[in-house]
């Protein structure tokens, strides 16, 4: 695609937004042309979310102009944004899953005659709308019966039907598996062909390069530049985003390779024999040794998370035997697992991880305090000491222990959760999707941390949808498919993403496996 010849549908110039103590956006320009997919890139805290919120009327700007279709506009609120033709689909689908697909598409603007809702028309139009997006589903079924991917596309259908000029997709792919992403991209290409301008935010660089035409990079609230995606190599893009050389990432690469080979003779910490839970994960055997990183690979819904939860007692296993240090144990609830030195950080950072109202300090000491019981508070000075140490070690930003944790970016919240568990000095750390939805820099830091912890003797069960990451960090990889552990591979020569994808695709243990 060449330089767009049409006029931009959206033009923002010199946008400035100040929060108490922080300049979130400092003179940012942003253009969006009809019929393009434009990626907005930047680390967490770069100002992406702020820019989107300005665009959708959530925030009022402190300076700059917004031109929509050539006319200057002031977007007074989300409703005004919608009326002006700007719709947003968020990472967490904000539809009502208990209503039907058709109801969700037309909620709040149902076609009526004399006040009576015309259900027939709603269903018919909803079906037509989804067909245009190549989606043939029963529109009278509740939304909850469909996968997250379908729900997202329903949200897109609704957005497009309301106003088809600008569609903002904020991290739409972070919970989707590969085939679902493909489906979403088909929908996006169709919209593009219809002349819709799409603003796309994603942390997956591959996806950016697959779908986007142009991209705008922000860093620390400032515009770094606008580029044509095809003309900007990935390495340069990442450097522009994090503003430094890729040394940290590459250093990690060496380290992980070096440490991969060494865990052979260590003693086992946890052994699972035939552990399973009906409807969640079929009985599996798994042994985790001291200092070993075990990766769980598999598609979304393959049972990765379910397996991890059983090993912490977050869900109760209904079959099998689990032993820790050779002694059998029944994990009735998380407390039991914690007492045996197991820590677990859930994939649902917001609902099962942080407590948004509480401060960074309180969130960090929470698990340790829970283990001590309420009658033995951690002395305040000790708390401050621990918290300061970990804020520094994990580079938690902003480095203010008393700030409510909900005000931190996703990557920093993740670091707070890691700190929460690290101070309990676990022997087995289970982390489920620790890098989902966080930026490149923070991701590299977390990966580095995992490698260091395992070098120090901690066992880690690492769950991630990103194969690259699992491959890079793990000594051993357990592959899951359809809620069953199908193969265990020792990481090393000959084990790569393709090999694992083949295992997943074929659904059976490949012969000649190293384990």
């Amino acid at each position, binding site marked *: 695609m060449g330089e767009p010849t049409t006029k931009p549908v959206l033009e923002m110039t010199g946008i400035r937004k100040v929060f108490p103590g922080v300049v979130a956006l400092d003179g940012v320009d942003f253009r969006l042309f009809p019929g393009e997919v434009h990626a907005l890139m930047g680390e967490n805290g770069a100002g992406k979310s702020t820019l989107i919120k300005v665009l959708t009327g959530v925030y009022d700007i402190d300076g700059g102009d917004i031109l929509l279709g050539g006319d200057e506009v002031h977007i007074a609120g989300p409703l*005004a944004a919608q009326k002006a033709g700007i719709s947003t689909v968020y990472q967490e689908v904000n539809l009502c899953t208990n209503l039907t697909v058709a109801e969700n598409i037309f909620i709040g603007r149902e076609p009526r005659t004399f006040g009576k809702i015309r259900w027939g028309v709603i269903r018919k139009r909803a079906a037509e709308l989804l067909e245009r997006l190549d989606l043939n589903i029963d529109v009278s079924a509740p939304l909850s019966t469909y996968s997250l991917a379908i729900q997202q596309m329903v949200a897109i259908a609704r957005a497009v039907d309301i106003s088809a000029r600008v569609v903002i997709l904020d991290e739409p792919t972070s919970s989707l598996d590969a085939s679902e992403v493909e489906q979403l991209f088909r929908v996006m290409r169709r919209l593009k062909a219809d002349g819709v301008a799409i603003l796309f935010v994603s942390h997956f660089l591959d996806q950016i390069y697959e779908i986007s035409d142009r991209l705008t990079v922000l860093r620390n609230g400032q515009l770094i530049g606008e580029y044509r995606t095809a003309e900007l190599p990935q390495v340069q893009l990442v450097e522009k985003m994090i503003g430094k050389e890729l040394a940290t990432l590459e250093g990690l690469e060496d380290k992980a390779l070096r440490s991969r080979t060494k865990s052979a003779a260590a003693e086992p910490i946890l052994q699972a024999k035939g552990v399973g839970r009906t409807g969640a994960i079929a009985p599996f055997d798994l042994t985790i040794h001291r200092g070993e990183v075990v990766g769980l690979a598999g598609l979304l819904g393959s049972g990765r998370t379910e397996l991890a939860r059983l090993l912490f007692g977050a869900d109760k296993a209904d079959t099998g035997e689990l032993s820790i240090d050779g002694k059998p144990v029944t994990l009735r609830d998380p407390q039991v697992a914690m007492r045996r030195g197991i820590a677990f950080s859930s994939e649902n950072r917001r609902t099962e991880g942080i407590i948004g*109202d509480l401060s960074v300090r309180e969130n960090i000491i929470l698990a340790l305090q829970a283990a001590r019981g309420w009658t033995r508070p951690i002395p305040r000075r000790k708390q401050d000491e621990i918290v300061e140490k970990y804020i520094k070690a994990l580079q938690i930003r902003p480095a203010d222990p008393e700030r409510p944790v909900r005000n931190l970016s996703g990557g920093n919240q993740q670091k707070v959760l890691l700190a929460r568990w690290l101070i309990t000095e676990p022997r087995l750390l289970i982390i489920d999707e620790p890098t989902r939805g966080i930026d490149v820099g923070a991701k590299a830091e977390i990966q580095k941390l995992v490698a260091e912890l395992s070098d120090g003797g901690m066992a880690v069960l690492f769950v991630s949808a990103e194969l690259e990451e699992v491959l890079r960090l793990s000594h051993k990889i357990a592959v899951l498919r359809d809620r069953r552990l199908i193969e265990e591979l020792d990481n090393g020569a000959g084990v790569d993403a393709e090999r694992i994808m083949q295992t997943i695709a074929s659904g059976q243990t490949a012969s000649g496996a190293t384990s």
Partner: protein
Amino acid sequence: MTILKNRLFWPAAILLALLIVNVFTSNQFITLQDGHLFGTLIDILRGSAPLILVSLGMTLVISTGGIDLSVGSVMAISGAVACLLIKDLGNQNAVGSVLLIMAVAIAVSAALGLWNGSLVAIVGIQPIIATLILMVAGRGLAQLITAGQIINVQSSPYATIATGFFLTLPVAFLIALAAIGLIAVLTRRTALGLLLESVGGSPSASRLAGIQAKRITVMVYVVSGALAGLAGLIYSANIKSADSIYAGNLIELDAILAVVIGGTALIGGRFSILGTVLGAVLIQTLQVTVVGIGVPSKATLLFKAVVVVVLCLSQSVTFREKVFGRFKSRPAVRAEVPA
């Protein structure tokens, strides 16, 4: 300007304003008489004791995301148990026996709290329904204990907790002060406060952090029950009888209001002991003021409602922004685009 933004500024200001009104409307605001302090202010402090006690328990329950509707009924039961036992004493003025009986009444109340807590945390019934059971059934229970009669007692040690004075201050108020101190220490000098706020903020995250949410939840209902029991004793000692119909009638609503005025959100999480106490005293002062300034009895409820509405508006961020915050923002140009 930061003091204006403090959530407790407006409740404190309104309390102060009401007290000033009382200075002018009451015959005696505060004087020394018969060796102890006397006057409207002292009446307010004395009268607010039961509400403070109930509100303290309610604060803890609400911080876990729950609610306790049964406090009024527990008050009635506590008073009924105490009066029934005191009436049967050979010597109603035996201090030791009366103290023991009060301990029994509080223990019974705590047991009722245990019932509430178990329904909520172990059986998993929604707090509003779980405590509604005891709210309704509890008054029936109190009437069974008193056999439908009002039991009168003539026990001066018992009356002391409501009407007595110690070091020139009302004993009831001192009891409330002690409870405030106890709860403050219990929650802020231990880790209980943090764990409560965590459970209220996110039950599932708390469970995965290893917090024994069930145990803590049961505990706050027990504390709420015990404090309601103590409040019931003061109420019944004040009228020297057990009135199972009017004791603690509708006090749960005043207590919830006190908690909310004090800045604790009904969805749970962060709580403020000081705020709750301020809220409870404010409500009691309002009650006294309404009588003092001669609002006709038919209009008292309405007057109370108006003050509460003003108070809630003053605490609403949205409302304050709408009224005060619009002057500085840019003139809004509506997004007007051809369809």
